[in-house]
């Protein structure tokens, strides 16, 4: 994601419109990163709010000679890792929320392969449940790999972990998930 350097310079001068422009450019990226990590909307928005505030307070520390995306990513990752999840939002519906039933009705109406659809829903639900049980750092390794597309070296550097640990964590997480999915597929 390329940010106009002039927008950042204006942000450093406390230009509100520049901040709004910057946040607008990054809102989707940040929301998806946070949501991947916490898997619920409310916590994602809470984390995003913290990230925005940190950007506002620390923009003057950003060196405009460096790329902006890694800087904002680091803020978002650290905020996610430090975030204490609110239990009341931390539920993954086992029977399917109303949105899923509505989607199912639409699917029925569309006369597509229902079995395949339900299987996909179940698989994704299991993946989300499994992500939920992981430690914050393991979860973040998954997010940085699958959402950000970072290499193992980049993940190791960002999370200050040895490269071997990152690989092992990801392999173990994948294996654990694979074993859960094996019963369905």
């Amino acid at each position, binding site marked *: 994601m390329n940010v106009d350097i002039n927008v950042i310079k204006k942000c450093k001068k406390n230009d509100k419109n520049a901040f709004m422009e910057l946040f607008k450019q990054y809102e989707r990226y940040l929301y998806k990163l946070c949501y991947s990590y916490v898997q619920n909307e409310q916590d994602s928005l809470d984390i995003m*709010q913290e990230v925005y*505030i940190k950007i*506002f*307070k620390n923009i003057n520390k950003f060196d405009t000679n460096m790329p902006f995306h890694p800087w904002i990513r680091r803020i978002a990752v650290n905020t996610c890792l430090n975030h204490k999840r609110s239990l009341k939002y931390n539920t993954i519906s086992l029977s399917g929320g109303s949105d899923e039933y509505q989607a199912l009705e639409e699917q029925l109406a569309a006369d597509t392969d229902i079995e395949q659809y339900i299987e996909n829903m179940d698989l*994704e639900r299991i*993946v989300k449940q499994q992500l939920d049980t992981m430690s914050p750092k393991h979860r973040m390794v998954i997010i940085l790999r699958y*959402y950000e597309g970072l290499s193992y070296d980049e993940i190791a550097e960002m999370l200050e972990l040895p490269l071997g640990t990152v690989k092992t964590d990801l392999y173990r997480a*994948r294996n654990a*998930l694979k074993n859960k999915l094996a019963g369905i597929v």
Partner: protein
Amino acid sequence: MSCKFDQEIIQRYIDNDIDPLELIFLKEHIKYCADCKREVELLTITDQKLFNVCNDIDLPFDLDFLAEKVMKQCDEEKKNRSGVSSAMYKGAIISKGIAISLSNYIKFIPGTRLISKGINASTEFIGKNTKTFFKNKIEKVFADLI
């Protein structure tokens, strides 16, 4: 799974980070090993599902309101802080004024000048003698060395 095949090769295959030779080796192996073939299939599905969960995310409709809310909050915080720092700044100026007045006042208290002269004279005396003492010591040390 009873097969002793190196599972890390399968993981590297999933990561698209496998050597060409290892790929040939893996493809040959799964022709005959049903367990490893199943491992590859399951890990491929797992990989796909992880990608979907991390990327197929619906955005809330009111996402742009969050930025406005935060900017408003930061604005208010800044105003409050500027009020506090302005008060502190004024307090510092007043304190400085008091300190200057006091120091000017002290000059007129009887005996102050005498005491100040005495302190200066003592300090000068001690300083001179200390300097001479150490100079002599150092000269002696060098003389002994030579």
